[in-house]
């Protein structure tokens, strides 16, 4: 099954085809509600994979399996596997520490959620969690992360200001910098622009495109144009199922599945 997907995607894949993660028969249930049903997919390294679909289709739920976010709440049950490479380890396994997973797979949320700390301390948060105390290392990593998040020039003179004083778009870039500071292998974006205005959205999208040389990106979006603009691969989900997964151009130009086509062309959703 997985091989099948890999083969169908490979011919169209633009550059790299290294596999970062493989999703095998993933199911997810909270309480009695089956939120994800038998999902199979691959995540290509240093590529942007978009998850699209109508509200409630499970795309955010799927994304949040990658950093075991569901572990924070009771009565959640994973099934199947998400294999992370190069370890070749199922990150959903009970033997895997969710904190270790989150150390390597970072996340940016729908609403900018800076901590009630200074700009510097927000970015340094993950580093401090990892026990880094040396001021020089912190300063260097914070600066790098802010540069990578295209925020350095705007905040370099006020690193000690409270993060809440930034604008919404800046706050979201700060959250991206925070996630980048710890050099994650995968960066998860959960509708990162849905709370932002069009200009801030454009800058975040540009940033995502720039970042894909450095990190594997998974992005949930309900904005199809956004998926078309930023992603290399797109997965269309509906009612907890993965309907179609392919190279973004294929999904948008000639989808194989009628349902996908209907959604893409705006006939429903």
């Amino acid at each position, binding site marked *: 099954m997985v091989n099948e997907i890999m083969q169908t995607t490979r011919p169209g894949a633009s550059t790299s085809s290294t596999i970062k993660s493989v999703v095998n028969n993933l199911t997810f249930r909270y309480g009695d509600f089956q939120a994800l049903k038998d999902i199979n997919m691959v995540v290509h390294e240093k590529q942007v994979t978009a998850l699209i679909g109508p509200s409630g289709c499970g795309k955010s739920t799927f994304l949040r399996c990658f950093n075991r*976010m569901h572990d924070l709440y009771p009565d959640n049950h994973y099934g199947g596997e998400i294999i992370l490479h190069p370890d070749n380890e199922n990150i959903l396994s009970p033997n895997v520490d969710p904190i270790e997973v989150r150390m390597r797979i*970072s996340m940016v*949320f729908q609403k900018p959620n800076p*901590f*009630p700390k200074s700009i510097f301390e927000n970015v340094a948060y*993950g580093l401090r969690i990892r026990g880094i105390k040396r001021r020089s290392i912190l300063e260097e990593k914070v600066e790098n992360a802010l540069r990578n998040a295209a925020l350095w020039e705007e905040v370099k003179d006020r690193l000690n200001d409270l993060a809440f004083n930034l604008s919404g778009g800046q706050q979201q870039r700060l959250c991206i910098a925070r996630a980048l500071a710890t050099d994650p292998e995968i960066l998860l974006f959960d509708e990162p622009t849905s709370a932002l205005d069009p200009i801030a959205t454009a800058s975040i999208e540009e940033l995502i495109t720039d970042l894909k040389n450095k990190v594997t990106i998974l992005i949930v979006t309900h904005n199809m144009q956004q998926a078309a603009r930023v992603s290399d691969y797109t997965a269309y989900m509906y009612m907890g199922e993965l309907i179609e997964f392919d190279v973004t151009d294929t999904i948008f130009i000639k989808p194989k599945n009628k349902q996908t086509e209907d959604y893409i062309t705006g006939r429903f959703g």
Partner: protein
Amino acid sequence: MKLSYLSSLLKRMRIPIHNTKDTLVGTPATRNLRYDYKRHLKERVIEILLFLAAFFSVFITFAIIYMLISESLVFFEHVSLREFLTDTQWTPLFDDAHYGILPLVSGTVVSSAVALLVALPLGTTIAIYLSEFAPFTVREIAKPFLELLGGIPTVVYGYFALLFVTPLLQMLIPDLPGFSLLSAGLVMGIMIIPYVSSMTEDAMRSVPMHLREGSYAMGATRFQTAIKVVMPASLSGIAAAYILGISRAVGETMVVAIAAGMQPNLTWDPTEPAATITAYIVQVSLGDLPHGSIGYQTIFAAGLTLLLMTLAFNILGHLLRKYYREVY
């Protein structure tokens, strides 16, 4: 039916419905637009009643402050402010009368300090546990019990201190007297815990989940998230809880009156007995001092001192809250 469909269609197409040939009759109006005096009068009466309710509490507050100040002024006609603030003895009912408030203030400060050393760390720890760690069922069971602790009459706490805690402490500190600030303070601390923990927990729980998720997503543990993100985010609420705790400790009466002794004593040693401001007021108001005598006036001066102390803490709390205003 058909007509209304047509008009809605026209509206959607943004074609004006009324052109010059149309008459402006349409369907008859279902309500007239006249100003409804009755309705607005009713609204006004309700508004006035609500205002009076709010005004009443403000009025009472000012009445109390007025009474304290005016009666204290009578006191300060006999005793200079200098003597009041610097004399080291408080013996207004003795023949050799001294009117130094310091012994009472020291008793209040020491007993409150002991209480806060118990209540703030314990209350905060409980709040962190209940808000960030406790499973739903544990929290639902533990919280009412904790709040029950706040419902026990203070006089019961007083006797608990005098008859249970003091003997217990005397086993550890053999020469501890029967009345002591330490015993009263400890029990007062236990009494205040529910106030501190309950308000602190409310403040921490009101921190939005997406902030916590941000921390967890960085690989933080529950404890790191609680200390580094949730607590700073709820600092203003926590400050309010602490201030309330301090005010309760400073103003608490029964426990200290019963367990700390009634003897004014200028000391910073918690193992000694000493009267607090509140204990003194109880003692004097229960006695039969003639109305208008200087001894009688002392309770107002003492009361005013107490009011100023709690007021200072409240203002401090207000400033803290303004300074650390939470913005998510």
